[in-house]
């Protein structure tokens, strides 16, 4: 009967070894400088490019129980935070190794479990002093913006993919529907620094739906900003006096273009820190991911402008969608208000007939097929239909359905149908012929957003339709790239649907390399969620290894201090004190390896040995100084910690700090330790089901006992 039983050898714990070897593959994915990996399937010779722990784990073979649990843990962290998975994976490996060493030294399991989890708890409390509130991060920006050099050096260094300067105060106007072409050469001659000009222009591109193609002034051609949804319009002069570059540019360009820009100022926010804050915060959390950061800053600026009246500085994730366009260079990535999606060329032809007409929109929350029934509907199979007087005039049943559905759509004058599920192909064809655009596989959030602004009510069947269900005021157009040309990417065409006042934003992600698409999308969402969690936590950790370094120094202090904790449970307490120092060292080794691997990955250290020496140096200095947290804080302010932060901004010591999420980080630690301890405490696998018979007859049957 189905049950096999395997003893997990206590000293050389199989489960922990499996965890450690799985985690080893993720070492290069740690830190801001990740090395991508190709995962090759030997049977098919297909390969995928991965650059995150999540995708790595997804592509590995995880039939072992420990592997399954690791997968489950990584997925759970991803579902909850979308960040911290690489940290989790790495610490699982590091702590598994450390625990294996404890076992070698005959430390009892219960001692490892209780000391390690108490130790982590204590660390999480200790590192609270390295949290700073979002408000303070913003203040820091204000104080640093008095030094314009900071931003100048950053923006110019990065060149074309420049940072969006949060000092530019931008307002957007949503009503312009036709693309506009703004000649820029009229003003650009005033500025000699063409490198800078480029920066500014593309930062504008980042802000709106527009991307920009700006040619150097030298070659006399027209620089163009094109776009249709939002245009940067006006500047807050008072703020801009901090920087001579912005004030001159802004005045000369925007004042001369008043007619085109119809800009408006909607009143000045009370606290200037709040309004720039999110963009800056996004930058500090981006850890050097320029493309995503630019997009996120555009989103933040747009959402903030909308929320100005309510005064909330929250990021609404439900109002962000992504659209992946393959075949365009990465610099074409931008944010478009409204909903950008890919449709077939036939569907795209319908758009031409729409012109600039407002569309009547219908939302459907199921499939649009004849066979579709709402979930939970049981089809009865024992119904027989008889036809007593057959007549040849009636067409087939399928046509009947098609005709009646089409009649409904036409009678309600619907132009645009957004469907959550699949769409019947025949109906789609007929709709195209009747200039009705039907788009399938639209997510719930998108339907919601359209429902809110068009007052359309989602229906499940077309037969449910009444006039109150149909919304109005939607516009559809072909999505145009930054250089103004409509895209035809072969099989699929990007289109944009918008409604006046719709909060929905689409991040259009572009790349010419197919295998990078997933990676870019993942990175974008990671950053979005980092900002989201920072706002939820209302605080961030000092980044760049500061937190881990404090944990290290704290654990070492705990190990030396022989404080006996009063455990109330005698079955867990007694062995703890004796082995405390060994186990705490094991806990510390996880963070130490973390720091040294990140330093190696970011090329701050040539070897792990060198990195370890550097960590030890800081630890000693911290211990000598009496208050490790004060030391770390000081070094962080000076950007002198572990070779100057982990970000790519090595040359810009001032102004650009690196921050991490609080909850996501501590939760990643906790989940990693929980997994290691869960596997550590497991002494047997019990295999049930049909696999047991295979085991009984296989060569490994001696490893198993059968009940």
């Amino acid at each position: 009967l189905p049950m096999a039983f395997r003893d997990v050898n206590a000293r050389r714990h199989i489960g922990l070894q499996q965890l450690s070897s799985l985690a080893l593959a993720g070492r290069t994915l740690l830190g801001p400088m990740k090395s991508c990996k190709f995962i090759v399937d030997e049977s098919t010779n297909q390969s995928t490019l991965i650059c995150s722990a999540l995708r790595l784990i997804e592509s590995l073979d995880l039939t072992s129980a420990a592997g399954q649990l690791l997968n489950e843990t990584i997925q759970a962290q991803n579902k909850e935070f979308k960040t911290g998975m690489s940290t989790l994976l790495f610490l699982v490996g590091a702590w598994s190794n450390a625990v294996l060493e404890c076992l070698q030294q005959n430390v009892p399991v219960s001692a490892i479990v209780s000391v390690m989890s108490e130790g982590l708890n204590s660390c999480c409390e200790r590192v609270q002093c390295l949290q700073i509130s979002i408000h303070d991060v913003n203040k820091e920006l204000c104080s640093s913006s008095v030094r314009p050099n900071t931003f100048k050096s950053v923006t110019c260094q990065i060149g074309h993919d420049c940072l969006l300067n949060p000092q530019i105060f931008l307002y957007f106007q949503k009503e312009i529907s036709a693309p506009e072409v703004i000649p820029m050469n009229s003003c650009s001659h005033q500025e000699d620094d063409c490198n800078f000009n480029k920066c500014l222009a593309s930062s504008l591109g980042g802000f709106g739906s527009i991307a920009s193609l700006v040619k150097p002034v030298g070659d006399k051609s027209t620089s163009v900003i094109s776009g249709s949804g939002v245009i940067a319009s006006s500047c807050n002069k008072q703020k801009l006096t901090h920087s001579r570059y912005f004030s001159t540019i802004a005045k000369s360009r925007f004042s001369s273009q008043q007619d085109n820009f119809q800009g408006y100022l909607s009143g000045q926010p009370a606290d200037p820190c709040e309004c720039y804050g999110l963009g800056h915060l996004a930058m500090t959390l981006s850890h050097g991911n320029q493309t995503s950061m630019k997009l996120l800053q555009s989103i933040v600026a747009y959402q903030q402008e909308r929320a100005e009246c309510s005064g909330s500085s929250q990021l609404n994730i439900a109002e962000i969608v992504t659209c992946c366009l393959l075949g365009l260079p990465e610099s074409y990535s931008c944010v478009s208000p409204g909903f950008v999606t890919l449709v077939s060329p036939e569907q795209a032809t319908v758009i031409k007939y729409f012109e600039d007409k407002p569309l009547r929109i219908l939302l459907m929350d199921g499939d649009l097929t004849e066979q579709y029934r709402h979930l939970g509907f049981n089809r009865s199979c024992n119904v027989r239909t008889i036809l007593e007087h057959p007549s040849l005039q009636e067409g087939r049943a399928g046509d009947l359905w098609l005709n009646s559905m089409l009649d409904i759509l036409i009678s309600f004058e619907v132009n645009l149908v957004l469907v959550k599920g699949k769409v019947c192909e025949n109906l789609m064809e007929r709709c195209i012929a009747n200039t009705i655009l039907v788009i399938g596989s639209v997510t719930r959030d998108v339907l919601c957003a359209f429902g809110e602004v068009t007052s359309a009510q989602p229906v499940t069947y077309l037969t449910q339709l009444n006039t109150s269900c149909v919304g109005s005021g939607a516009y559809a157009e072909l999505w145009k790239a930054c250089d103004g040309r409509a895209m035809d990417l072969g099989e699929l065409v990007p289109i944009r649907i918008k409604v006046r006042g719709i909060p929905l934003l689409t991040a259009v992600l572009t790349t010419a390399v197919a295998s990078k698409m997933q990676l870019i999308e993942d990175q974008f969402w990671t950053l979005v969620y980092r900002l989201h969690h920072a706002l939820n936590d209302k605080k961030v950790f000092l980044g760049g290894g500061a937190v881990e370094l404090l944990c290290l120094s704290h654990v070492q202090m705990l190990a030396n201090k022989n404080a006996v904790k009063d455990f109330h449970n005698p079955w867990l307490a007694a062995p703890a004190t004796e082995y405390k120092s060994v186990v705490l060292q094991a806990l510390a080794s996880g963070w130490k390896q973390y720091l040294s691997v990140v330093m190696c990955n970011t090329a701050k250290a040539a070897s792990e040995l060198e990195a370890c020496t550097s960590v030890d140096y800081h630890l000693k200095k911290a211990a000598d100084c009496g208050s490790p947290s004060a030391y770390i804080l000081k070094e962080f302010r000076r950007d002198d910690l572990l070779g100057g932060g982990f970000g790519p901004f090595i040359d810009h010591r001032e102004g650009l700090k690196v921050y991490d999420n609080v909850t996501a980080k501590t939760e990643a630690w906790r989940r990693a330790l929980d997994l290691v301890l869960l596997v550590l405490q497991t002494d047997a696998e019990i295999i049930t089901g049909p696999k047991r018979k295979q085991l009984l007859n296989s060569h490994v049957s001696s490893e198993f006992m059968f009940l």
Partner: protein
Amino acid sequence: MSRLEAKKPPLFISEPLTKDAVSQSLSLLSGILKSCYGPAGRLKQLHNGMGGYVCTTSQSSAILGRLSVSHPVLSVLTASVQNHISRFSDCGLFTAILCCSLIENFKSLNVAPCTVLKISKHLLSLCMDYLKSEACGCRVSVDFSSVETLLCLVRSVLTSKPACMLNKPEVDHLTTLILKAFMFTVPCHVETNAVLGKCVIVPVKGRRVADSTVLPGLLIETTEIHLANPLTVKRTCSNLVKVALFCVSMAGDLSNPEEGTITVHHGISLEMLELNQLLNIGKQLVSDEVGLVVCQKVIHPSLKQYLKENHVIALDRAGLCLMEPLSQMTGSKPIASIHLLSPSCYGSLKDVSIESFASKHFVHLIPKDTVVCSLILCNRNETAWDELKRACETAEHVLQLTIKEPLALLGGGCTETHLASYIRHKSCSLSASSFKDMDCSRTQYQLVADGFCRSLESVACSLNHDGGEILTDTVYGHCWFVPSGFPSVSNWSDLVSKCGCGINGNTENLNWRLLQGQFGSPVIQGCPEAPSVKVVDFLTLDCFVAKCSGLQVALETANLILDLSYVIEDQN
């Protein structure tokens, strides 16, 4: 053409317990269960070996539920333990380990099975009488006017399941929540026969344990995109929300399509007919001023649309397990037909609101006075959540059992060692007439009693998983633990700090001795005393009713198995 095969004769196995395979399997099972026992117990990964879900657990309910054993002797054992678990939730491992130990110990005695049976029954009755007497030194009475003992009971259940992966603050948080949830289920106005309400566990996986919370009333998950955020609900003149509860599917499919064929004429749509019937029901609900419609199954989108247009909130897919608490809470009778609606079926609610946890949205049904509550239970990953859910259910059940019999037994092995020393003391002072009644000699009685005591003590020893020594004291008969790595000759009083249950500290000389390794020379000792201190915080306590039943079940099952002389296996 069919081929007939001769029936195989059934297989007779005599004296099954003497067979090697059986005793091997039995000791393997006993080993697995012993290794799971207690707060330091080892976990088991139960999985199908092909990459499916992995259940990490040390709970008997999960292990025995998934384990299928090959031998009838083992099946008898697992079946009776599972039966115990289904009735009491707690003390499953205790029962199973004790049963295995009893079989092992009794089997090795050179005493006729029928004599063992008689003597052990006598021993059991000694135990039960002692446990139920006021003089019992290993039980505490539970005072419902203070929460301390109740918290101890719940905490002991949670800490004995290490796969829940809780740290100390999390244990404290959940302990309070579980007790709070239990308090919600106790009715405020007690009539002649009070019925406890129900606590429904709402899963929110992936979150921190500290995010768990408890709410009065019920939560129904909804994915409806039409639900606007501030919920406006139609109220009756008494400012209550009228509720209709349907347990029949309102999906608009044919209700009874099991047998036979329905023949319809072309052009007649059964679906349309069903839908019209549903819309008629909808009309009646609207005219009866119903504010909230809850359906166990699915509601047809058209009906939902109709109800929404008439400002009635419609919730579907409530699920079977919510039906009973729903009807208890709202006072409505579940409606089982879409053809007949009696206004007497309706119930009422105080309010309805929207609650969100993680990415899930719930409609919160708030009753007038509640005996129903929802425990929103969070844990970081699936396998730990499942374990935590089982532990929480056990804890709730333990509290329910305790309210009926307000007693608790000292945990941490102390009840077992205390009982063992009580039986040792009693068996020495038994009168000769008792032996005559049992038809046995004093030596036989002593042998069986010693086996019984050693079985009890071996359960206490199973709490130890990392080496070290188990001691007992001769004053209270409690169980003490000394970690490994100390020379066994040293003075025990230097090494012990607290007894297993935590009631006794190392304050006086209690004359400790090793629990194991004194075979053959049972120490003659006095009757163990009850500890002088009665109320201490952070005691390890076990459920009285569950443990008493466990003791009985273990002994009776062991006797049954020892008494097996034939196994007849049908080979066809």
